[in-house]
C-alpha cells in the first residue's frame, strides 16, 4: 500500500513538473512575442519610444504617431502574429496527427495549392486584393481534399500521405512556374512577391478577415484536439479507448487546412513556419507532445522576428518575410531528412 502511495506521488510529481514546464515555456514565448510585437511597432522610418508607443496604443498619442502605429504598423504586426500562430498550429496538428515531422502543410502541398490558385488568379484572371486571398484559400482546401482522396486506402497513414503530398506539391509548383513564364513582367513581379510570402503593406483589410477566421478556427481546433492524444496511438488503440477516429481526424485536418489556408491567404505561403514551429516548441518543452499552444506561440514569434529582420536589418530594401523564414527552415528540412534516414525513421 505504501509503495502504491509512493508511485501515486511520483506520478503526480511528474505531471506537476510537466505542467510547470509547459507554463514556463508558454509564458516565455508570450513574453518574446510581446517584445517582438512592440519592437516592430516602435521601429521604422520614424522610431517611436516605448512610452509614446504605449500612450498611442492606449489612445493618447499624437496624431502622427497614431496614424503610423495604428494604421501602418499595427495591422502588419497583428497579421504577423495571426499568420504565425495559424501556421504553427496547423503544422503541429499535421505533424502529430500523421506522426511524421515532414507532414506539415508547407511540405505536403497545401501551401502549394494556395500558391497555384493565387498565381492563376493574379496572372490569368487579373485579380488582386481580397479576391486573390479567397482563391488562395480555395486552392489550399482543394489541394487538401485531393491529397486526402489520393492517399485514402481504408484510412490514411502518415507516410503515404506525405509521399502523395510531396508529389502533389511538385505538380502544383511546376504549374506555378508554367503560369509565371506566360505572364507579363509586371504581373509576374506582383505574383512573385505574393509567392515569397510577404507582410509588406498589410492593412486592416487583410488583418481583419484573418482575425475573424482565427476567432472561429482556434476554438474549433481546441475542441477537435481533444481526441489527439488517443489518435496518436494508432487507429485500433484510439478506437479501443473510445475515440471516434475518422470523424475526429477529418475535423482536425479540416481545422489545420483552414488555418494554413487563411494564413496563406493573408500573407502568402510564408515558407517553413508551419514546419519548424512545433519542433522548436517541443525542444523548449523537452518532450514530444502535440504541443499545440506552444507551437502557435512559437509560430507568432518566428514570423514577428523574421519580418523584423527582413524589414529592418538586411539593408535598405525590405526582404519578404517568407525569404527570411526559408533561410531558417530549409537547413532544418535538410538536417531532418539526413538524420531521419540514418535512424530509419523516415516514415
Amino acid at each position, binding site marked *: 500500500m505504501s*509503495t*502504491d502511495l509512493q*508511485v*501515486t506521488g*511520483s*506520478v*503526480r510529481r*511528474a*505531471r506537476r513538473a*510537466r505542467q510547470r514546464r509547459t507554463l514556463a515555456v508558454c509564458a516565455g514565448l508570450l513574453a518574446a512575442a510581446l517584445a517582438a510585437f512592440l519592437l516592430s511597432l516602435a521601429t521604422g522610418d520614424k522610431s517611436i519610444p516605448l512610452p509614446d508607443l504605449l500612450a498611442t496604443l492606449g489612445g493618447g498619442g499624437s496624431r502622427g504617431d497614431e496614424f503610423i502605429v495604428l494604421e501602418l504598423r499595427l495591422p502588419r504586426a497583428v497579421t504577423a502574429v495571426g499568420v504565425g500562430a495559424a501556421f504553427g498550429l496547423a503544422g503541429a496538428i499535421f505533424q*502529430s496527427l500523421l*506522426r511524421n515531422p515532414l507532414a506539415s502543410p508547407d511540405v505536403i502541398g497545401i501551401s502549394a495549392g494556395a500558391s497555384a490558385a493565387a498565381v492563376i488568379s493574379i496572372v490569368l484572371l487579373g485579380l488582386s486584393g481580397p479576391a486573390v486571398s479567397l482563391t488562395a484559400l480555395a486552392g489550399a482546401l482543394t489541394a487538401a481534399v485531393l491529397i486526402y482522396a489520393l492517399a485514402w486506402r481504408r484510412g490514411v497513414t502518415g507516410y503515404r500521405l506525405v509521399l502523395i503530398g510531396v508529389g502533389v506539391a511538385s505538380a502544383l509548383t511546376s504549374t506555378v512556374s508554367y503560369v509565371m513564364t506566360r505572364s507579363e513582367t509586371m504581373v509576374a513581379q506582383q505574383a512573385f512577391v505574393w509567392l515569397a510570402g510577404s507582410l509588406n503593406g498589410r492593412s486592416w483589410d487583410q488583418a481583419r478577415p484573418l482575425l475573424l477566421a482565427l476567432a472561429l478556427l482556434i476554438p474549433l481546433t481546441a*475542441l477537435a484536439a*481533444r481526441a489527439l*492524444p*488517443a489518435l*496518436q*496511438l*494508432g487507429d*485500433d*488503440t484510439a*478506437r*479501443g*479507448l*473510445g*475515440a*471516434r477516429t475518422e470523424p475526429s481526424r477529418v475535423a482536425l485536418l479540416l481545422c489545420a487546412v483552414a488555418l494554413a489556408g487563411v494564413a496563406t491567404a493573408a500573407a502568402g505561403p510564408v515558407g517553413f513556419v508551419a514546419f519548424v514551429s512545433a519542433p522548436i516548441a517541443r525542444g523548449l518543452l523537452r*518532450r*514530444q507532445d502535440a504541443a499545440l499552444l506552444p507551437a502557435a506561440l512559437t509560430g507568432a514569434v518566428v514570423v514577428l522576428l523574421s519580418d523584423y529582420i527582413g524589414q529592418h536589418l538586411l539593408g535598405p530594401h525590405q526582404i519578404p518575410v517568407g525569404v527570411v523564414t526559408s533561410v531558417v527552415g530549409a537547413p532544418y528540412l535538410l538536417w531532418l531528412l539526413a538524420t531521419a534516414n540514418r535512424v530509419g*525513421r523516415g516514415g
Partner: protein
Amino acid sequence: MTVQHTLRADALRLTYDRHEVVKGLSLDIPPGKLTMIVGPNACGKSTLLRGLARLLTPASGAVLLDGASIHSRPTREVATTLGILPQTPVAPDGITVTDLVGRGRYPHQGWFRRWSDEDERAVAEALEATDVAELADRSVDELSGGQRQRVWIAMALAQGTDLLLLDEPTTYLDITHQVEVLDLLTDLNTSAGTTVVVVLHDLNLACRYADHLVAMRDGRIVAEGPPAEVVTEQVVSDVFGLRCTLVDDPVSGTPLIVPMGRHHSAK
C-alpha cells in the same frame, strides 16, 4: 469483485473487402475467466478479437455487450467497460512511460474534467501491477521489447475496464517475458476478477494459462472449453493439421502438445 459484464458473439460474420474472415460464429465469453483463442495463421482469430472489441463492423450477426449490440452504445461508454490492446499499437516518438499509460484514462475524461486524483491513482496502480514503476520517467523508445509490452499492458490496465482483450501480447517476446506477461494477466484475472480474452500463438502456453480455450480454423470455432477437456490429438490435427502426441504438462498438469514432423514420430 466487480460487476461481471457479458460479451457474446451472435452468428457473427466479419469481412475485409468482401472477403469473409469470420464465418457466422457464436461465442460466449465466460465472465471472470481467462479465455484464450488459438488457431493457425489466418484462421480469423485476430479478426474475431477486433470484432469483439467493436473495431470492425459486422457484415451480419452482432456482438453483444451485456446483452445489447456493442455498436448501439456510445463508443466512449463502451471504452469504460471493455479495453483492447491491439497487436501493433503505436507509441508517439519520445513519449514517456507515465504519459503513455495516462492515455489509458482517455475514456474517463471529458471536455472539462481533464485529470483527477482518480486518474493519477489508476495510472500508479497500473505502473505498479505491471512492474514498470521504476521506468515511469523513461522514454518508451528506449525500453526493451518486454518492458515496452508491459507498458502497453499498463496503459490497458489504466483504462480500468472489467473486460480486457489482448491480441497476441507475447509476440516478439522471448520465452521468459512471454511467461511473465501471461502470469501478469493471470494475476489480473484472479485478483481483480477481470474477464480477460487473449489471442495467443503458442498452443502449449494457452493450454497452461487458459480457463477457457477456443480453437478456430477457417473462420469457425472447432472446439471450445477447458483445455484439459478440449484438447485431443484429433482436435490438434483438425485445427492445425498437425500430427502430435499429448502428454501431461509436468508443471501444470494441463495437456502438452508434442508435435510430430515428417522426421519424428511416436514409437
